[in-house]
């Protein structure tokens, strides 16, 4: 009897054990040390890079990894955004087919558009970035019609979606009494010139300095900590690097010495070596025209519905002759490249000077993207990031805006700067855990010579 009793006891204790087995040791994630940085009310001011544009569109699957959102996740603070459902704000580039072995791809623009999904949020968004915003817009744009590009006949409806008629980016930032602000603005002030082959005005350097100063004055007046980011070198992004070498290769295959292009003041010539060495930059917008080099039927103009410019004779080989040169808006010639270098240096000089005089920190995106632009790229979390189009992991299909993992690199650059400046130890994002973000469409033929096939016009709205 005694033994039966003990068996019952053993049984009872086993049952107890098995019911208590769900109670694991509590694990807690390590607390985040933000040092003297205060993320209580965290606001971002900026353009498409802050809004997390990818592949020419702004859509929720990308916005959830905007660099501001990634930083907010790391420090555990609230961060509301003007999100758009798939496929986003319109014209999203998608891969119809790709040949990774021979390095070519067909890319199409999605003709659908998503809708805003966070319109009812009752306060200004933390992320005030607007695709297409110029520096002046931070101070002056209240809606589509008052934004800078409206002066050029391109009212930008995204100002309505993000600002919702409540004020300018700066006013909405101030209204939130921000404790911490990221300010990455001014890219479009030079990029619009560069991505249009030098056919768009550049924001005057003096005006840039004055506006930048005004923004910082206002943010500091409400006690916000501000971290800025500088302006990247356009030469290192795939938008400018991809098509030229491909054309060089095709010219070489056809034993042609080089190409002839239109400049604002006349006619220019680029040798095969100039194309390989990036002494001239053929824009990604010229990817579909690249396959028409040598054409004597005027196909470039008829296919794209463009009137033949005065002085052009389409009976001569396209892109190879002074009579029928490569169009000016599809190339950044050496003169224009020098202007871009000079302006980027001037803008970054202003940003650095303001930072120094105010004791603020600058994220040196310029240097990071230059390192990524080196042939070997950089390695982060086991992944190699280069400026190769599509396969480089860094840039989305528009050749300008980062992939989701690319935004992770941007966020890490901010975090590193913040950690150094404010004695913080915010953990870095493991960029390898961020999802792939180049989107697929369907199936059809491919381009030659490693030149991606992007329809004419599909990249017209890449900046605004």
């Amino acid at each position: 009897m005694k033994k039966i009793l003990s068996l019952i006891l053993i049984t009872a204790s086993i049952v107890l054990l098995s019911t208590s087995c769900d109670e694991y040791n509590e694990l807690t994630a390590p607390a985040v040390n933000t040092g003297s940085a205060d993320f209580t009310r965290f606001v971002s001011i900026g353009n498409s890079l802050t809004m997390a544009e990818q592949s020419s569109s702004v859509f929720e699957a990308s916005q959830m990894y905007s660099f501001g959102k990634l930083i907010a996740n790391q420090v555990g603070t609230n961060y509301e955004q003007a999100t758009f459902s798939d496929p986003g704000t319109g014209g999203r580039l998608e891969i119809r087919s790709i040949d990774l072995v021979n390095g070519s791809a067909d890319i199409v623009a999605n003709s659908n558009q998503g809708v805003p999904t966070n319109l009812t949020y009752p306060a200004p968004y933390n992320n005030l970035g607007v695709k297409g915003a110029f520096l002046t817009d931070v101070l002056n744009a209240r809606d589509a019609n008052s934004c800078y590009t409206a002066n050029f006949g391109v009212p930008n409806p995204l100002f309505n979606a993000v600002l919702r008629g409540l004020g300018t980016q700066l006013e909405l930032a101030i209204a939130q009494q921000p404790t911490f602000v990221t300010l990455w603005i001014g890219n479009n002030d030079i990029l619009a010139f560069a991505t249009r082959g030098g056919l768009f005005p550049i924001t005057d350097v003096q005006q840039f300095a004055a506006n930048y100063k005004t923004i910082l004055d206002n943010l500091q007046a409400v006690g916000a900590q501000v971290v800025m980011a500088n302006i990247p070198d356009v030469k290192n992004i795939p938008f400018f690097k991809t098509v030229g070498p491909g054309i060089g290769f095709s010219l070489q295959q056809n034993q042609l010495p080089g190409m002839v292009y239109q400049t604002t003041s006349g006619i220019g010539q680029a040798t095969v070596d100039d194309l390989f060495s990036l002494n001239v930059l053929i824009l990604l917008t010229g990817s579909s025209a690249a396959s028409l080099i040598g054409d004597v039927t005027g196909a470039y103009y008829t296919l794209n519905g463009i009137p033949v410019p005065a002085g052009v004779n389409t009976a001569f080989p396209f892109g190879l002759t002074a009579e029928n040169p490569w169009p000016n808006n599809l190339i950044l010639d050496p003169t224009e490249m020098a202007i871009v270098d000079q302006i980027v240096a001037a803008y970054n000089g202003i940003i650095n000077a303001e930072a120094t005089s105010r004791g603020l920190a600058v994220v040196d995106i310029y240097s990071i993207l230059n390192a990524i632009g080196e042939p070997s790229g950089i390695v982060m979390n086991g992944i190699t990031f280069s400026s190769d189009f599509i396969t480089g992991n860094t840039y989305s299909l528009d050749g300008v805006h980062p992939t989701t993992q690319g935004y992770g690199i941007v966020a890490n650059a901010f975090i590193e700067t913040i950690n150094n400046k404010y004695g913080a130890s915010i953990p870095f994002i493991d960029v390898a855990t961020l999802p792939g973000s180049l989107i697929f469409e369907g199936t059809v033929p491919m381009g030659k010579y490693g030149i991606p096939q992007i329809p004419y016009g599909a990249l017209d709205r890449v900046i605004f």
Partner: protein
Amino acid sequence: MLGVIPGILLAGGFQLNEHGAKPMGLGGAFTAIVNDASAVYWNGAALSYLDGTNLLLGASIIGPSTSFRGVTPAVDKSNMISQTFLPPHFFASHKISDAFSVGLGVSVPFGLGTKWNQNWVGRYLAVETELQTISAPLVVSWAILENLSISVGGSFSFADVTIAQANSQTPFVGDAFITLKGDDKSAFGYNAGIMWKPVKELSIGASFRSEVDYEFEGTATATGADQLVALLPKGNISAKLTTPMNIQGGIGYRVIEQLQLSADFQWVGWSSYDKLAIDFEDPAYDDISRPRDYEDTYAIRFGAEYFFNNQLSFLGGVYFDKIPVKPEYLSPSLPDADRLGFSIGADAMITDNLGICGSYLFIRSAELTVTNSREIYTPYDEGNEGSASRFNGTYNSYANLFSFSFYYKFN
């Protein structure tokens, strides 16, 4: 009848020790005291002590549970999808003469089945992994003396394996999904046993079960974006797997008329499992080779049987089973840890010939936190392994098992 899906991670590695309700109730301390047809598995030499013809048929019901919290520094919890397994066992023995007895059987000596959500954080390491081996041993036992016997035998086995996991398509959106399936329709092993009963109260036994080399042949299939599917591995594959040898020695002692105690020491040659290697016939696809570096390991087992009367006895057992894999090689396809097992059971003769035994086993794994994992759980470029992301985190596992056996003696 439910589909038979044998196999699960219960002993260290993917060995199963549940071959009969009675040994399970005794914590697996059975080598020296086996007194039914399951001797075919546990110790063939014990067949010499069984009279006439004996049959034993049953199955185990196994419900394992595992969670992973990580990846460090995160502590997000992922639970393995719960599955129930039903490995069967069947054994038969026959005494041919005073000197010789024979036995045969079918059981599941090795198996595993793990299934994680397709979107879980470790999906590039494991989504679905299933291995099942079915082994049919044939044993001859020779009673050298009245109290000493030895046995030798061979076994015929077959096995099949499924490995499914997600593959990152970065920089492109979405995951591809790769499924590898293969089988080996015939593999052979051998076994031996010895049993000695120096005095009436005491029995000593030992058994040996050999390694079995499996050579799997099968196919790989892949699904993913249409644009990339040409690059995904597919076609014929082959893989080798050697299941470990076992040496198990035990002692049984009848302390008093109503109580028998038993203890076993089991040595498992897990060092046979050094890597998971899968070869693709098409040279366009890289072969898979993941180091596992398992080490030989052991289990210590204790059992007690209390004889209530001539018809009814109660069983109890406890064991400790040592982890065979270094934590840095641990994969979520086969979570492992030091394990403690607690069992109870009852054995009853319903008629003079028919008996039934039922037992319950609870297995608790020690919490295991991996801090130096070699398993990379994110996409990475070849040559960049050094900076790639490692699958560090905390595993917790337990399992509930029920086993039933019916046995019948023809006198």
